[in-house]
């Protein structure tokens, strides 16, 4: 079961409060998740805290599932940071700004665990 979703990324106060402490496990907890509408989550058969694979043409990332009834159906939110940016649209379309919001993505349940900050950054050095 895959969910077709529109991915947006952005600030949360909790992600922001660990900006200057990114080596902390709390930063990981506050960034490596994806918020979905409760109905989308139940359609995927996923409970809060279980893992999701979010993928699109730009890459894929494993994050934890979180419920947010404020999200309309089909809208996925990942806090700004290395996990979200693994799958945002790098193309600036000639205006300098990459596509951090509105990235068509597929979401499915995953048995894998999210990578921590160091492991994630190491994937860029290969």
């Amino acid at each position, binding site marked *: 079961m895959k969910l077709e979703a529109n991915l947006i990324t952005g*600030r949360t106060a909790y992600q922001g409060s660990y*900006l*200057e402490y990114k080596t902390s496990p709390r930063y990981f907890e506050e960034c490596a998740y994806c918020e979905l509408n409760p109905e989308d989550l139940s359609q995927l058969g996923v409970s809060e805290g279980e893992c999701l694979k979010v993928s699109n043409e730009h890459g894929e990332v494993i994050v934890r599932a979180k419920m947010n009834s*404020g999200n309309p159906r089909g809208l996925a*939110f990942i806090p700004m940071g290395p996990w979200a940016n693994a799958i945002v649209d790098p193309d600036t379309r000639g205006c*300098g*700004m990459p596509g951090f919001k509105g990235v068509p993505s597929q979401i499915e349940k995953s048995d894998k665990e999210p990578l921590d900050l160091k492991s*994630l950054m*190491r994937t860029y*050095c290969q």
Partner: protein
Amino acid sequence: MKVITDVVCPFCGSLCDDLTVKVEDNVITDIQRACILGHNKIAGVCLHERIESPMIRKDGELVEVTYEEAIEKAADILANSKRTLSYGWASTSCEAVSKAIQLAEETGSLIDSTANVCHGPTVLAVHEKGSPAASLGQVKNRADLVVFWGCNPVHAHPRHMSRYSTYARGFFTKKGRKARNIAVVDVRETDTSKLADKYVQVDPGCDYMLLNAIRSVINENEDVIPAQVAGIPKEEIIELATMLKEARFSCIFYGMGTTQSRSKYKNGDAVSSLLYDLNQYSKSVMIPMRGHYNVTGFGQVANWETGYPNAIDFNRRLAYYNPGETGASDVLLRGEVDSAIIAAADPGAHFAQEAVRCLAKVPMIQIDPYHNATTELADVVIPAAVVGVETEGTAYRMDSIPLRMKKLIDTTFKSDEEIVTDLIEKVREIKGGA
């Protein structure tokens, strides 16, 4: 014990200047009135792990070296590169920005601020249509309608609403929240939208359409609007437009919901056009919700020193600016960059994966107080003092008001300004000897 009042918070563009900080034996023991973001940043200076020593990557590992060795290695990289990207400079003082621009000019680098992934499109929108702005003081004292469009101040600028907008009591707004209406436009319910009198849930990426539909109503052409635009029924669009038209003084605060979604700079352009129409009937202004506390300051300093606000390329030995071409992400994606100097920002965490991959390939110098995602990719790391806590400096608030940040505690770390000054001197030495 030392009690320091009127401390300016070095976190977001709200630049709250009313904090009280207590210091005992050079340790911060109490912070009053700061939000969660500001509190964690200021308290973290004494609590969180710092980069204690300059480091150079040897055989894949960062190894501690002396400050002089790090400066020498960094200057060597800069002096021997053809296309250096100098990026960040938003969480630091204007004085450091000024030095960074000088370094970029001397090394023929391309210098860009975090506006590249934030309000860069807003800058373009201002070029296109202008920006009828006001100070936050004007908003506090006069605004009877505040619109938050594509922004979530409860999370990103937590004290904005109590100090300047939603709840602030001013000369003509003595009743605070009761004196004004709050409207929120967003793609999903947020903690900010829950506090609004009017919440409009726009379809993702359709802000431009909604802005223009509102303009049609303002200009008395509502007959051209279909039954629904951007997922919003016509009646709601008319309601929002009427709120704007009937307000005595309205302010549209706009955030990443406009700059990062489809249409990008055209959204800011449309806000500006909307204000042009609105100001035929009432008074209306727009203010971008700037993120880093001094990203506005980077734009100010760059403007007065080079004539351009960001994405400035000195490769031709004169300042050249074309953000879609000279923006940090663009130049990285084209694979042109052969070295990078990153300060007071974390592109490792906040650039798209393709750009990070390009950054990982080139020799990179990092100047920062803390270990972050960029450190994982850096080849030379120079620890810095935290501006606004360990060193003073000037910063510009989101409404372009300059404020002087204080030094609260002593430190042995050098400031960004001192580090860049040393780098300039070393680069000159190497180039002079060549």
